[in-house]
């Protein structure tokens, strides 16, 4: 198993992006690793390369299944602005995580996996069990919605 696939700091960040809450992220992260350690002790570690992330994703989805769900309404979407990078740089990681964790699945998983910059698109398709067209659509939609949110949050920068 390549080291990249067992990147534990990235696993924690994934949990954080999925849940938007450091406490919950830690719980899921610890539960995933405890289970993995037990399986390792019994020699039952899966052979697939990114099973830790798959397991953590499933736990994150389970953890939020009983949470209050936001009302479904259509978010604004804006074209990616040339100055978007400067808007994003003003974001706190927690703000970004809260925004991503508020997205419905599988968009939430796609955004979290993609922006970890840990997996190529084949691996994301496999992890999120999606087709290329779906992944493409979810990423485009995510970028446009995030841009709209950035424009609303930092209007003065968006108008430059």
């Amino acid at each position, binding site marked *: 198993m390549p080291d990249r696939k067992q990147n534990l700091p990235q696993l924690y960040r994934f949990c954080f992006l999925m849940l938007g809450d450091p406490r919950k992220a830690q719980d899921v992260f610890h539960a995933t690793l405890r289970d993995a350690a037990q399986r390792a002790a019994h020699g039952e570690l899966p052979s697939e390369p990114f099973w830790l992330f798959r397991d953590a994703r499933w736990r994150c989805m389970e953890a939020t299944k009983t949470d209050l769900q936001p009302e479904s309404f259509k978010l604004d979407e804006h074209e990616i602005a040339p100055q978007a990078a400067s808007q994003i740089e003003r974001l706190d990681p927690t703000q970004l995580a809260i925004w991503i964790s508020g997205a419905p699945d599988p968009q939430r998983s796609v955004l979290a996996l993609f922006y970890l910059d840990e*997996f190529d698109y084949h691996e994301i398709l496999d992890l999120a069990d999606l087709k290329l067209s779906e992944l493409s659509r979810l990423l485009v939609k995510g970028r446009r919605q995030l841009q709209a949110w950035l424009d609303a949050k930092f209007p003065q920068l968006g108008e430059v």
Partner: protein
Amino acid sequence: MLSLMRRQRFLLNCAPISANQSGDRSMRLALSRADGSVEFANQQKFDRAVSGVVRLIPIPAESAEWFSEKDLLPVSNWTWKKMVRNPAVLAISIAVAVIAGVFVFNFLSHLNDFPGSTTARKLLTIAASTRPVMLDPVNAEAGTLSDLFFMKHGLEHYDVPPEFADFDTIGCRVFEDDESRRIAQIWVSEKRMQFFLFPAERDSKTGAVLRFPGWRYVHQEGWTGAVTLQSGVCFMAAIRGPDKDLEPYLAKPKE
């Protein structure tokens, strides 16, 4: 063409954020075509900025403790030793070894096969179970029995080779085997040897005699037979014991 362009569009939307996520050929092709596109450049800047914020996510000290405990998540160490100890691998290895052993045994057993060797082995079994009372008493040299076989039984060329022709006979008989072939059996006093004369094996299509040169050995249940072919009839000298008991007789062919 349209679907190819759509796929390239999809790929560009999923384009890797950093260069170390080397894409496949189709991704590289899509990236090369998008080179210089303002829209794509904006997307890349956007993705890099978001990814940059993600990298800033702090790792709590409690979680960071896991990173140093490497043994908690050992990398699956694939070793030959570990693999050999795997019961499934062990079972398969044993099965393969047994199959290979049987194969090698069969191969070696049939390495010295020759036309008529199967019949010769059957006759060695008969030799082992034959008692003197089962044969007609004859007091003559083995070489003289050819006439008896021809005159009494109509068996042509049932000749004892010169190497064994001088031995005194105790008894002889002619019988049919399970394939109705007529077999002549001779018991001689010399080391209680038995001789067998039987029809040579023939090609099932042409009927031609399947030939083999010189003397060939067969073994069955502690008995050894030395077989030779002459005039379409096989002669076998059978003895209880190893090859070396027969070798002295075969080494010096008589004129």
